């Protein structure tokens, strides 16, 4: 089995995994990083959203080999120790989460959006496809706007 090394939430890791094993399962089943969630496995629900070199990706469809030598950030790597990322803070302020299952992905998508644009429009926010089956969309929208203002 091939071996891959990459930076995961600021730490370098090395893992044996089949090249085509989706990164989601390498993270969850081999490295014990459980923040990214399975919701569909085919790049539809976006529950697994994480960052590869700072860009939002869906590790359920990224082969592990593609992470080799790169930087992977999951929800666990977003805060700086106990200091939360402003987007996480905004999520707390708006009390967004219901069941919470989609929220790691929602937050990672929002962080990526705010990286691309400091002042996201409603249309930018509409373009986030992450499913929230609990229907917390309006609070997500408010939280993204609040985070943008705070940053």
């Amino acid at each position, binding site marked *: 089995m091939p071996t891959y090394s990459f930076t995961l939430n600021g730490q370098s890791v090395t893992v044996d995994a*089949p090249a085509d*094993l*989706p990164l*989601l*399962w*390498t993270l*969850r*089943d*081999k490295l*014990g990083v*459980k*923040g*990214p*969630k*399975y*919701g*569909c*496995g*085919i790049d*539809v*629900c976006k*529950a697994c959203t994480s960052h590869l070199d700072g860009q939002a990706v869906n590790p359920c469809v990224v082969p592990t080999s593609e992470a080799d030598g790169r930087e992977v950030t*999951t*929800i*666990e790597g*977003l*805060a700086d120790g106990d200091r*939360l990322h402003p987007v*996480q803070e905004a*999520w*707390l302020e708006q*009390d*967004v*989460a*219901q*069941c*919470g*299952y*989609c*929220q*790691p992905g929602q*937050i990672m998508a929002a962080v990526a959006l705010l990286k691309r644009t400091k002042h996201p429009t*409603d249309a930018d*926010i*509409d*373009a*986030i*496809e*992450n*499913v*929230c*089956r*609990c*229907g*917390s*969309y*309006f*609070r*997500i*929208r408010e939280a993204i706007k609040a985070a943008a203002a705070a940053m």
Partner: protein
Amino acid sequence: MSSSPSAGHSRRHFLTYLLATPTLAVAAALVDPPPVARAAVPTPPAPADVLDLGDVLILAAAPTANMITVAVGEDGRVGLALPREEVGQGITTAVAMLIADELDVPLDRVDVTLADARPELVFNQLTGGSNTIRSVYTPVRTAAAVARARLVAAAAARWGVPAGQVTVSGGVVIGPGGRTAGFGELSTAAASPSLKVGTATPKPASQQRLVGTPTSRRDARAMVTGRQAYTLDLDVAPGALPTMVRRPPTISGAVRSVDNEAAVRAMPGVVDLAVVETGVAVLAETFGQALDAKNALQVTWGPGTVDGEDDDSIREKLHAAALPFAAPGLLTQHVDAEFDFAFVSHAPMETNSAIADVRDGKAEIWAGLKSPIVAQETIAKDLGLPVSAVAVHVVQGGGSFGRRLFFDAALEAARISKKAGKPVKLMWSRIDDMRHGRARAASHHRIRATHAAGQVLTFEHRVASVETDFRHGLGEILTAMSASLPVGGNLSFAQTVFLTTVKSPYDFGITTQTLTEVPLQMHTGSWRSVYSANTRGAEEIVVDELAAAQRKDPYRFRREFLEDDRSRAVLDKVATEGQWGRPMPAGHAQGIAFHAEYQSCTACLVEIDATNPDRPRVTKATIAADVGRPVNPRGLESQLLGGLTDAIGTTLRAGLHIRDGLPLEGSYSQFHYTRQAESPRDVRVFVMPANGEPGGAGELGVPAAVGAIANAWARATGRKPRSFPLTFPVDFDPFPR
């Protein structure tokens, strides 16, 4: 006429009254319509007005209510193991608030966890019917009041002062002369059986400080940092293998033979295979490998239970099953309407999942479970083990909407673990979750309302629905409570649930709502608001059409016919705050609707942009809710927002097509649940001030929003909304079976 039994009348009294009345009233009114001079034709109370499903659940839970205990530890922390399931409703936060308020302890010193299956609780460990807060409000506060009284008594004994001179504030016990003691140091003495304690009753509402205060979720930080652990995030059964199941091409088909077992066993990462009742399980090192292997399996399947069925055949059966109307349509002015609702997947974000370790004559299970006692009993029986050998742990769930009343994954995981002789972590794929998971049953609705001279004389609603499965313990509860039920005769469980949840909130004269079920062996289950989303949603559309028939404004028409002031107040609130009647551009419109259930009521006013009639968007929503006593208004707003989002999805685009005995949809790209781009950019929720005891709130938001959205769509497009979801093409290539 009041919609709830007033204080001073015993429920027994009302039961007697109800059982004697409606049939007689029907006959009388049809022969002799009331004179037109009457303001409105009053409607006798429906069964749900007398005793709703929530009341039944509270009564069933009452004998074991004193087994819910509050514990004070030596560390000064206060704990309660809640015999309910948290799936996002915020009940652990709300219950912690009840305890903190009663004990005068800071909220962050209260721990609310989810209790394992406790068979001794009998009927007091089922999460459903919007009933958690209603059913634990008094028991939890009483338990906390007892804890407080014991702490006070222990401090009084230690200081040798009368208990009346001891108070509790900020989590500290305070005596005369500024003496203080912490909860922790008093906990042992407070637990002593010889301690003399007076009676303890919960504080009156006027002394509640936290209850009613908007409070953020206590688990929110864990959720935004990725630390919140759902079933498959747990490391509880060392060596438990990622497991997935290959399922049949039609619902409930059984495995005849596995045709390439050796080849699949040789695939990378595959550890074991096991054939169980529901399919072929693959145990592997990772879920990715289990998924590849299960897809590679070649299996010969036996027939399923509904192989010949599709949307058309099911609709035909439903139309044939709906009962005829009692009121003649020919001689009176009337509004008739028929509606069809498709199957709807629960589709919680976390698919069915469970961890099971069945070895050495015992079993241990972890899963998100709303009826863990029934799960435990069923699994024990299935495995041939005594109940005492099966431990069932309740794990916080990633959404439910009724889904986790069933324990399909827990039972399946137990069977696989037993067969393989290894602990397993079972995950259903999303495709399987939508196709072989549970769904809200499809239904057909026939409504006739007769009216004359500005009054509504009769309102009949005939519902025909594919059978809804209630075999998660509710049936047993209803059987046990049958003597108290406000319905007589030989009703099925489903009809009993229907009659104790659905009621018309209007004085529309003689009102009858009936349910007929079409038995089809499909995987169904209660879906948020059970029958009300469809039944009351359809009725709210007819209310608009009745208003039009009488040339009245839909808001004013509702106002005129609603039964009480509480109802009118929420309706007025949305009309005012949502600017009912403001001019809208072509293709845009407002819609309004009302709903009452479980002693709560709500109104919803939406605006819709239907300039593209195939892709309408709800642009704004104004919601008001009166839940009697909101414990956590912030959490309540979340629930109403969720209900609105559910209504947008299921009214406009989200449903399941059935073809050749299987749903076609297998992902959110096919089952079009609402996304951000379809959700309104402007939502306002108003929680009415407390005026009584808590009513139900978890499901309340859906039916009124369904009605409001459909009514707005009707006004914007000039079309009658009749078949749901309104836009429902097969706009995808179905996944292979």
